[in-house]
Each structure stands twice: as structure tokens, then as C-alpha cells.
């Protein structure tokens, strides 16, 4: 029931919302989250690498976990890969439910789990020419474990 995509292309939240709600009259709430590339510390671009054979499988498991915990009518997870410049959207999470609490909580849950349980890695390139792999953050692990 989840729509999962890993793509280089940008996504459109209105189009994805329309897909998620099409033909339904039992949805009272759609929550969404968009993660965007920030220009911190002179960042020129972010390069997102992933493990293609595993990525969609891991995202399906994360979506299935959300659907087992909240009464969702559906959810959408789209993660971009490749080179993304500041201002570019990176990830979209959309959840739909009869009620707002389920939509909002599951959206936050999906982001916390995507950050810590899907095989993506970010490499940052800076305007001065330096580059570095982003390090996992303890606070992201803590956020994922609180659910």
C-alpha cells in the first residue's frame, strides 16, 4: 500500500498528494515532510549515494512498520539520489489517515526511521573544494529509538 521511489528527479508534493488521495472519501488528514538541502558552512552540493538492491526493500519495511502502528490509508516515501544543490528537496514523506494524529505522528516516525534505517549516504562538497562524508548523528539514533 506504500508508494516507494528512489530517483534523481524532483518530486511534486501536490501530484503525490493527489495520487495518495485519489478516489477516496475516508481520508481526513494528509501530513507531509520535505527534507531540503541547506547551504550550511559554504556547502556547494550534496551527493547522495545508496545501495540500489537494498534501498527500496528497506523503505518498504519502514513503511510497513508505520502501517502496522497507525491506521493509515496509505503513505508515500520518495528519496532522491545523485547531486543536489542547496535549496533542492531531498526526501518526501506523505501519510494519509482518517485522523490527524495518525497522519502527523506516522510522518515524524517515517522521517526518523528513514534517517537511520535506509541505506543512503550523503557526501558534502564545499565551495572551497573540500568534501566530506556526513557522519551519522547520535540524536538521529535517539529520535529513531524513541518510537
Amino acid at each position, binding site marked *: 500500500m506504500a508508494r516507494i521511489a528512489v530517483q534523481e528527479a524532483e518530486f511534486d508534493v501536490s501530484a503525490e498528494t493527489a495520487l495518495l488521495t485519489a478516489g477516496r472519501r475516508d481520508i481526513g488528514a494528509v501530513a507531509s515532510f520535505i*527534507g531540503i538541502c541547506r547551504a550550511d558552512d559554504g556547502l556547494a552540493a550534496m551527493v*547522495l*549515494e*545508496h*545501495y540500489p*538492491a*537494498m534501498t527500496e*526493500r*528497506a523503505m518498504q519495511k519502514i513503511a510497513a512498520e508505520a502501517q502496522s502502528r497507525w491506521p493509515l490509508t496509505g503513505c508515500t516515501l520518495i*528519496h532522491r539520489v545523485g547531486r543536489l544543490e542547496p535549496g533542492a528537496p*531531498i*526526501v518526501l514523506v506523505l501519510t494519509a489517515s482518517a485522523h490527524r494524529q495518525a497522519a502527523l505522528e506516522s510522518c515524524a516516525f517515517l*522521517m526518523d526511521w*528513514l*534517517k*537511520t*534505517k*535506509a*541505506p*543512503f*549516504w*550523503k*557526501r558534502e562538497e564545499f565551495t572551497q573544494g573540500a568534501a566530506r*562524508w*556526513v*557522519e*551519522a548523528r547520535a540524536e*538521529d539514533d535517539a529520535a529513531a529509538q524513541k518510537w
Partner: protein
Amino acid sequence: MQILYFAWVREKIGRAGDDIALPPGVTDIAGLMRHLAALSPGHAAAFANPTAIRAAINQDFARPEDAVTNGDEVAFFPPVTGG
């Protein structure tokens, strides 16, 4: 068996994977990391701190004590940083 590397693990080793035969006596992820670390200076650098490395067996996250067999696809990578 197929071994895959991602992110800085791949960069330190200098390639995206290795195709190896599982040596006798290597039965789990921790043992496989020790075996791979001996293959080249790049491998040694990548696996210098095994606690900094995560693994997957056949596209599922795995722990150091999880068993590996010759038909498996095993991947090594840093903790993930997507989202």
C-alpha cells in the same frame, strides 16, 4: 560470494566490491571483516575500526555475530545518513 562497499568504505578500498570465496573458519560478519581487512592496505584502512562499519546480508541489516555463507551478498558501509 559478492562483497559490496559503499560511501567512505568504498573510497578507502578503492573499488565498489570484491568477489571472494568464503575462507574456512570465517562464519560471521565480524570474522569476514577481519578476513577482508587483510586483503590490501585500502581494506585495512577501511576496516581499521570495525565498530564504525555497518553491514547487510542479502540486503538486510546485519550484526557482527550474524552468520554468513558462500551464497550471500554482504555489504559494508558507514552508518546511514539519508533523509
